């Protein structure tokens, strides 16, 4: 990792220090709530409201794993994790499977009846529409097909909402690829599909991975449609967390565990995928 402050031509050390302080403050603002959640998840219910100071486990209270052990065996917890994983991964795959070919077509072919740019803007416009406006129509459609409270319903709905991301991001990724590479492959004997499959797609792996992660995160965090379209079988993690407000009030110690688990899984997946997001994959393809 390069520390930019040490690059030649940067300002004085005073300016560097100010930048450093700003950076640290921003990190603290983002990290502290996460830390506080982790700290709370390790406290006994009694300690939740009584701990003072920074709430450092082992110093300000005696940490315990009881909340975690309790929550991990709750059937709804396990079910919601499983559901969220299935729905998020399926939506990512489906949105990419539909979005990548559309994006490639928009990047490489000129459509005559409707201009490429208009089609792209139409895709984008789907994201402008407030999702809540479509809740009732979707509910009725899914009810008609007896799909309420099923994985498939949430997979389809989330795919509908994330497809524009896939199309817009991947279209730009394909546009950024030098077209000569695909032309060279066609001179070598590849058809359009071969040029896409053997050249354009492998070279877009970083963009595919990044798009998959964005869709995964979006679907993982989706609450509105999960609440409306699911009741028992297809509950997701956000639904389960939102339901933490019980007759006894909010049990912050359990809520913290649920929140931590909801965060850990996407972080773990992002870390796994990170190695595919490498820059400069096309380096050396064309002059440069």
């Amino acid at each position, binding site marked *: 990792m390069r520390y930019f402050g040490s690059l030649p031509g940067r300002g004085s050390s005073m300016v560097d220090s100010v930048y450093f302080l700003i950076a640290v403050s921003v990190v603290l603002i983002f990290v502290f709530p996460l830390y506080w959640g982790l700290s709370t998840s390790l406290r006994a219910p009694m300690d939740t409201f009584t701990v003072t100071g920074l709430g450092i486990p082992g110093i300000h209270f005696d940490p315990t794993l009881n909340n975690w052990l309790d929550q991990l065996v709750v059937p709804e917890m396990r079910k919601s994790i499983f559901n969220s994983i299935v729905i998020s991964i399926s939506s990512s795959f489906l949105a990419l499977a539909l979005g990548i070919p559309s994006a490639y077509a928009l990047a490489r072919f000129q459509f005559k009846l409707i201009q490429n740019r208009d089609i792209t803007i139409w895709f984008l416009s789907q994201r402008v529409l407030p999702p809540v406006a479509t809740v009732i129509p979707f509910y009725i459609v899914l009810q008609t097909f007896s799909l309420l409270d099923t994985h498939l319903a949430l997979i389809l709905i989330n795919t509908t909402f994330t497809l524009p991301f896939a199309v817009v991001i991947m279209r730009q990724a394909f546009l950024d690829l*030098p077209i*000569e*590479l695909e*032309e*060279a*492959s*066609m*001179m*070598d*004997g*590849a*058809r359009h599909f*071969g040029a896409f499959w053997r*050249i354009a797609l*492998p*070279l877009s792996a970083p963009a595919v991975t990044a798009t998959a992660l964005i869709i995964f995160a979006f679907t993982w965090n989706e609450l509105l449609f999960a609440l409306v379209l699911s009741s028992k079988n297809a509950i997701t993690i956000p639904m389960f967390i939102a339901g933490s407000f019980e007759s006894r009030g909010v049990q912050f110690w359990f809520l913290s565990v649920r929140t931590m688990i909801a965060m850990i899984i996407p972080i773990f997946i992002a870390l796994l995928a990170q190695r595919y997001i490498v820059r*400069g*994959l*096309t*380096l*050396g*393809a*064309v*002059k440069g």
Partner: protein
Amino acid sequence: MAEVNLKNIRKSFDGNEVIHGVSLDIEDREFVVFVGPSGCGKSTLLRMIAGLEDITAGEIFIGDRCVNDLHPADRGAAMVFQSYALYPHMNVFDNIGFGLKLNKVNKVEIRRKVLDVAKILRIEELLDRRPSQLSGGQRQRVAIGRTIVREPSVFLFDEPLSNLDAALRVQMRMELEKLHERLQTTMIYVTHDQVEAMTMANRIFILNDGVIEQIGSPLEVYRNPTNLFVAGFIGSPRMNLISSSILGVQEKQLTIQLPGGKVLPLKRNTEDLGEGERLTLGIRPEHLKENKEGDEFFEGTVDVVEHLGNETYLYITDADKNLITLIAEGESNTQKGETVHMGFHHKHCHIFNADGEVIN
């Protein structure tokens, strides 16, 4: 092995025609160069032959097949791109063997062919490397290797040397010439660099604004440009073009005015010419002498002197404010501000009529 014939080829982008009915015949095993300024349509023409660009009208034949509707891969042509276009996610071996793999050639055969090509191009030790680990010259060799291995009947080169430095360009130029000798295949080479055109081509096709201005061997187009465009485009520094007018017309003789008022009689076909008509006199910089040497001379004042060692470029303003370039052999003693008497021979004069066509 194949000849390439273009019959009245036209190309329009969004209704805007950029190639205006080009017809040409390239013989089997010929090395031809399409040369012209940026935007003249030379690359578009090459891409249409390759099949990477649709043809608006006309027919393209490679060998005796009309290839208009054939996929690029089915035309028997291979192309080297300006940007090399190497597959960055494959090593050199796979880059070269990719076309064979697509054509379902067996692995042993692919290996043999790739190694053969690597040997010809002296890149055997690079086969495991990725394109990003190669220098410009090495990448260019791999790009050429990728075309050779498919044994095409026509090679297409789209400004393949323009990304290389000057020294490497000279070296690669010679290697391409040797390659042509060795492979004995039809080669079509696009460039805007007239040195490449002059040194490599059997024949040069000079294009401008989507039409062919002249076709001929390098020396032919250099010695006898048929119009003003070719006269100005071929040759570096470019030919001096001096606007003038006709003072008198006799049978087979033309009298024109030189800068400063002198009269220049020239033997030319005078049909369709009349007194007072505008025309252009062209003289190459190397055909002008500093010291009245030749049949005629005119005066000018030296603005800039450039010593290149083996020759000296003098940039001169004549009496009519034309900017004239003169190449003197060796080191000239002429100084800036001096008056020079630029001598020349009648045989080195090119005369172009008001439409820019040569008058022979």
